[in-house]
């Protein structure tokens, strides 16, 4: 079973670039609604996180909607006056659309962060430059190493009785000492690592690298599908005519735009489609055995 996120990291990154890009590119309410709904669906299915992120998003949506009419007084339909400044319906609606854009992009970005684990990130950036990828992979490893080491130094200091949590000044001095020991150890250890690398011939020949991911033909198909659907969506957005100021004028129902909405909708629930297809196939294969 090859789920959507097991595809080549480059394809997965391109997917999130496409959906986020179209979402941020558009002020079309239909596209934004599709994007928001689909991203929430994706998030609920593939990223566990409880209710907290959704509450945060709802609050953000309300706050961002309110900001625009407070700073922007364009528009013909005046709802009421606040401090002698007109609050207009157009500014409110535009605020809602931009808030939707921001919240939907945030959901996509969170999904992207969940999908891009450090090995995938390394695979993507390693292609850019070997030196950068080496420093990157070492620092990713050092983060966990140093955290573990920090805990050990702290425990040792506590066991020696040098670390008193009751007194804030003592605690501060204690943590400064732990930090100092940690840094000394980390730098010395780094130098030893470097010596060892050089002794084994680092930098004398071409570097090879172990890679977890291959670019398969199915990834190529995915990439083509992403680009085609994104292009359809962008053309659809271009065909719809939307004016917010001074009065709202929308022509959302051009046949081309409807095709664009369809394309973008398919694009945004593509992970769900692929995972469902794979799950069904898996079930079928299993029952065939």
């Amino acid at each position, binding site marked *: 079973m090859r789920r959507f996120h097991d595809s080549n990291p480059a394809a997965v990154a391109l997917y999130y670039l496409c959906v986020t890009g179209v979402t941020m590119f558009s002020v079309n309410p239909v596209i934004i609604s599709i994007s928001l709904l689909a991203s929430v669906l994706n998030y609920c299915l593939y990223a566990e996180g409880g209710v907290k992120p959704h509450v945060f998003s709802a609050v953000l949506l309300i706050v961002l909607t309110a900001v625009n009419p407070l700073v922007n007084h364009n528009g013909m339909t005046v709802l009421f006056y606040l401090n002698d400044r007109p609050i207009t319906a157009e500014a409110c609606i535009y605020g809602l659309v931009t808030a939707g854009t921001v919240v939907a992009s945030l959901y996509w*970005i969170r999904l992207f962060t969940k999908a891009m684990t*450090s090995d995938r990130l390394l695979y993507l950036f390693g292609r850019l430059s070997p030196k950068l990828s080496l420093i990157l992979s070492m620092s990713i490893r050092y983060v966990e190493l140093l955290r573990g080491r920090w805990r050990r130094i702290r425990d040792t200091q506590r066991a020696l009785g040098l670390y008193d949590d009751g007194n804030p000044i003592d605690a501060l001095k204690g943590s400064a000492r732990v930090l100092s020991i940690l840094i000394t150890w980390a730098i010395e250890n780094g130098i030893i690592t470097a010596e060892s690398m050089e002794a084994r011939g680092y930098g004398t020949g071409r570097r090879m690298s172990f890679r977890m991911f291959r670019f398969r033909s199915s990834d190529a198909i995915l990439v083509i599908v992403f680009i085609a659907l994104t292009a359809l969506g962008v053309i659809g957005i271009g065909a719809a005519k939307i004016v917010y100021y001074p009065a709202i004028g929308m022509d959302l129902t051009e046949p081309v735009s409807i095709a664009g909405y369809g394309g973008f909708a398919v694009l945004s629930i593509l992970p769900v489609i692929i995972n469902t297809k794979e799950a069904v196939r898996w079930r079928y294969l299993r029952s065939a055995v």
Partner: protein
Amino acid sequence: MTVIENRRVRSVMRFGIPLVLIPALVVTGAAVFGEKRYLLISLGVAMLALALFAAGIEKKNIGSRRMVIVAVMTAMAVIGRFIPLFKPITALCVMTAMYLGAEAGFLCGALSVLVSNIYFGQGPWTPFQMLGFGLIGLFAGYLSLPLLKSRVLLIGYGVLAGIAYSMLMDVWTVLWYNGSFDGTLYLTAIVSALPYTALYAVSNVGFLLLMRKPMGDKLGRIKLKYGV
């Protein structure tokens, strides 16, 4: 597998990106989208600028010892981002830059953002943050001699770095919310970000003063002992 290992590609990038690609992107972007879509354009420019630095760094021969120490300092900065409120990331970048050079400072700043965003969330803001912290490190490296000598200058640099970084990220906030740049919104963003700006500046100065002596001694000793 590597794009930038090829010397010719690298030299093409070093001249092509600032002279051809960035102006082309800005002009076509402005022509195609009107004034509405600065966000996408600026994101493209930020990523190209990072690629430019990647090409430049690959050219310089940073020894493997220096590389490993940069990795260690990057990891320290990442861990430092877990401290609530006060973040030592700028201070660590500046220290790295002062003792190991401008390239090391840039790498430390940019990569610590990239790595720590694995924990804090990647997004379209990542290239901007990388560029922001990278430049803080880079300039500290160029100014390393006066910064090493004078404590007042170091404090000034910490304050300035905090304010400049905050203002850069406010530009990004406005672009993201509005699509185009808007003076009133920018002022609103700056004012509402004031506590954070102050916090940045205070933690920069605080950590720089705290680390200046002990951290400087350690890095200086390593430099002397192993000839980094």
